[in-house]
């Protein structure tokens, strides 16, 4: 590198190195196996919803509609009519839970202190999970409208949105969750580095 003492060549080298690094992962296929999915196939499988909501389908729902579905779809049967204190994980925190002693539970643990309404930084997590994982035994059977309505119901019952607020692909990602800033991402992962410098 000593040869490059002027600014321009050094910049060129840096640019070249960067270019090589950036394109290293985007190289052309070597083995030629696997088939290209159609856009329709990808859409049908792509149920992971970003915090930006960009994958959310069209449709809409309100808390009022969600309250009806909460009973009709059997949610209340497992999660309780009030959304807590039943066999299935707590959905709606009891108001006085802060005074109760913290309960041990295994991850992913859902109790009054970390229901999705209380703990998730993004409302999209609730939509994503109801859509992919509920109701038990009939996963994937809810329409987008129903998922929006049930999400709105939980958000309303958790005191986050108003009863008349309509949830859709535009409004849902904008919901300001109580724990929006309450999480730290893990540090950038690098091969061969300890978890936390200075930790015994």
């Amino acid at each position, binding site marked *: 590198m000593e040869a490059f003492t002027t600014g321009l060549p050094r910049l060129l080298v840096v640019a070249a190195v960067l270019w090589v690094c*950036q394109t290293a*992962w*985007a*190289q*052309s*296929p*070597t*083995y030629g*196996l*696997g*088939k*290209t*999915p159609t856009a329709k*196939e990808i859409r049908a*499988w*792509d*149920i*992971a919803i*970003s*915090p*930006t909501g960009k994958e959310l389908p069209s449709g809409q729902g309100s808390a009022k509609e969600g309250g009806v579905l909460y009973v009709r779809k059997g949610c209340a049967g*497992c999660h309780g009519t009030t959304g807590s204190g039943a*066999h*299935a*994980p707590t959905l709606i925190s009891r108001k006085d839970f802060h005074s109760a002693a913290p309960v041990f*539970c*295994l*991850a*992913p*643990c859902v109790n009054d202190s*970390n229901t*999705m309404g209380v*703990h*998730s*930084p*993004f409302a999209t*997590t609730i939509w*994503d*999970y109801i859509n*992919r*994982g509920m109701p*038990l*035994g009939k*996963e994937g059977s809810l329409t987008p409208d129903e998922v929006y309505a049930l999400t709105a119901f939980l958000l309303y019952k958790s005191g986050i949105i108003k009863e008349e607020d309509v949830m859709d692909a535009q409004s849902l990602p904008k919901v300001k969750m109580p724990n929006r800033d*309450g*999480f*730290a*991402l*893990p*540090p*950038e*992962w690098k*091969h*061969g*580095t*300890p*978890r*936390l410098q200075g*930790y*015994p």
Partner: protein
Amino acid sequence: MNSKKSDRRRFLKSGATLAGLAAGGRQLANGQTQETPPKKIDELIAYGDRSRFVTSIRVPVAERHSPDEFGLTFHVLTPLQDSFGIITPSSLFYTATHRGAFVPDIDPREHRLMIHGMVDRPLVFTMKELKRLPYVSRIHFVECLGNRARPTHKTVQETHGLTSCAEWTGVSLSLLLKEAGVQNAASWIVAEGAEEVKGASSIPLAKAMDDCIVCYAQNGEPIRPQQGFPLRLMVPGFEGIYQIKYLRRIKVVDRYYMTYDDYGHINPDPKVAALTHQIGPKSVITFPSGGQQLSGPGFYEISGLAWSGAGAITGVQISTDGGASWQDADLRTPAYKMAHTRFGYHWKWDGKERILMSRCTDELGTVQPTRAEIAQYWNEPVDKVRVRGADNSVQPWRIASDGSVHNGLA
């Protein structure tokens, strides 16, 4: 999808039959276990069984039974106290599921892996195509973040049974991602399973490009259904929830997706976040351990396991005096990266009460901490310390003067 639904029904039906057997048929009134009718010799020639005198089994965690009232399997502990070497038999490998799950009955001919998102060439692979690609076989442990010793636990199965180790065979995830052509702005992947809850986790792209394996085999045979048949993602050294079973989809993305499984792990403290995803250097003595009995003073071989999410184990030390002094143990197996490593230590018990401990060091030089050291770090009294993130604290076992062995945390 229709065939899958009917498989589920079949599973539920056979599950009910099994539950009926467990409730009624297996236990006799006098408490003895009824002997199952012996298998025919041709059956045993085709597929071997263990001796009827070997009875080691997995047990569900006490905090939530499996199957639960919905028939779901949650967390089931491996019997480390009976283990030898470093390979956990697939039938005894610990089991954990995202929220409690039914074990899906997947036809490998129907199973697909889709790679899409921020890639130049989205791809769908059949199992046959995946098996045509170059493969790797490596030995790695898996450990659940819920693997934390409590004073109420009696045995090493209860304190540490949510870790197991196996040989995993499959295609490097980096190979598949390169085939698809990852775009420059990508920084994470979301990996997703095909079970009914479609459990999904966000994984750093740097890790995905480093050493992850898309596995179709475990311990020399196709991965068993409880472990993710027909396809499982291995993310070496990361906590168990990342090792997505029934892997069906990898979406390359530009942010942390905050899936249900992600949100269950988030913490506002960056230090706790750093300690949560990768397993620290950790070890435990499996003999003598809680619930076992020494038959009198004299020679014993202390035996145990050490592992680290950051790489290979380079050393293990033993204390027989509650941590006042430490001596080097021997590594009895090759020390593979992110794998259980068996250690042994020659010990002559003098018949007095003793506290046994082990601590390990990994290739980064990180030493497994005692609870006292962790308490000092968080500035908490040692009897009240809460071990944040993945718990890799030193486990004490108390040998009473009658030779009985007890949890030293109690």
